[in-house]
């Protein structure tokens, strides 16, 4: 049984204290998720707000079988993807030739010096389509097939977007290396 059963059942009765407890439990992790997908902090806060509104409205649908945090995280990601779809921000360039060696060759020597903020800044510079695929595959751990289903694209498109994203990030790391050196 889920450890949050009591809080969830109270939150379902519109108990504000329980709702705040759920918010305090999930908000830091979900805000981190939103920050990775958003262009800036303001956008991330909007995503978080929408995500919690959805979570509280769908709380009755949570079956208390799996992880509550995982369920909430999926809702947050879906809210973000819906927003991108509405704004038609998910555009994918099709031309990509996989060139893994180049990425590997680029310096990842600055890795130890990079903070969360640096990584977020790098990711936020990616176009929405590439950023979404990179986050879904690398951080959330979805497969290319799952990503293709979620975004309504071909599996190849997901792969190509990931490749392009990694290429762009590698170029950014190279620049950071040059500046550091």
């Amino acid at each position: 049984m889920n450890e949050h059963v009591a809080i969830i059942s109270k939150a379902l009765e519109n108990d504000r204290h329980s709702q705040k407890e759920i918010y305090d439990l999930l908000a830091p992790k979900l805000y981190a998720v939103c920050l990775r997908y958003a262009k800036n902090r303001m956008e991330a806060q909007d995503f978080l707000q929408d995500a919690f509104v959805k979570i509280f409205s769908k709380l009755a649908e949570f079956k208390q079988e799996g992880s509550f945090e995982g369920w909430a995280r999926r809702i947050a990601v879906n809210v973000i993807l819906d927003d991108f779809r509405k704004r038609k921000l998910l555009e994918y360039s099709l031309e990509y030739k996989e060139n893994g060696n180049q990425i590997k060759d680029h310096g990842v020597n600055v890795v130890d010096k990079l903070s969360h903020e640096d990584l977020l800044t790098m990711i936020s510079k990616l176009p929405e389509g590439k950023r979404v695929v990179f986050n879904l595959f690398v951080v959330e751990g979805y497969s290319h097939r799952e990503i293709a289903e979620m975004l309504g694209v071909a599996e190849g498109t997901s792969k190509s977007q990931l490749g392009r994203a990694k290429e762009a990030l590698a170029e950014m790391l190279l620049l950071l290396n040059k500046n550091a050196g």
Partner: protein
Amino acid sequence: MQDKYSENSDPIEDLFRKGFDSHKESPPEEVWENIAAFLDATKKGAGSEGTFLTRHWGKMLSCLGLFSSVVLWLMLTSKEEVQPLPVDNEKKRDTSFAAPSLPVMVKGEEASKSKEKKGAVTVKAKGAKTKIMDSVFTENQLKKEEEKPIIIPSPTPESDKNVQEQVKEEEPSNLYDQMKKEKKESKQLFIEKKK
């Protein structure tokens, strides 16, 4: 979902995966305030008042009833307007109200026609009247027309025949009775005179 750390061959993937794995950050207080305000609004909306339609259905129904009654009243009044105008305004009246399929007869025309057919004045005039009544003339005017004495022109042999034929066609039984009575009366008078 894929196993997160099963394929760590790519250094960039590894870098970001590890970098974000333990990432947590508290959002500003405004976010919770906004969420709480939204939850309050939905709670009030769901609990007491409901949607716009359910809240205002009574008003909407009454408006609909009022509107339909106004439309009905307008339809009825528009029908009344089509009816003929009173006699005083008859001179100003436009003949465009007449039904297009029916013949429209003006007084002058009626008179000329009646002159042309001298013998059949009484009967034909009545027929003509009914047609005109249907199309143009008002009831008041018809009453006036009926009140007018029907002038029978001096009988000519031709006209007499026509009149007799038409009278026979229209009212044969009455005329026959009258003739019988007249004959009886003339016989009685003749007998009395003899006596």
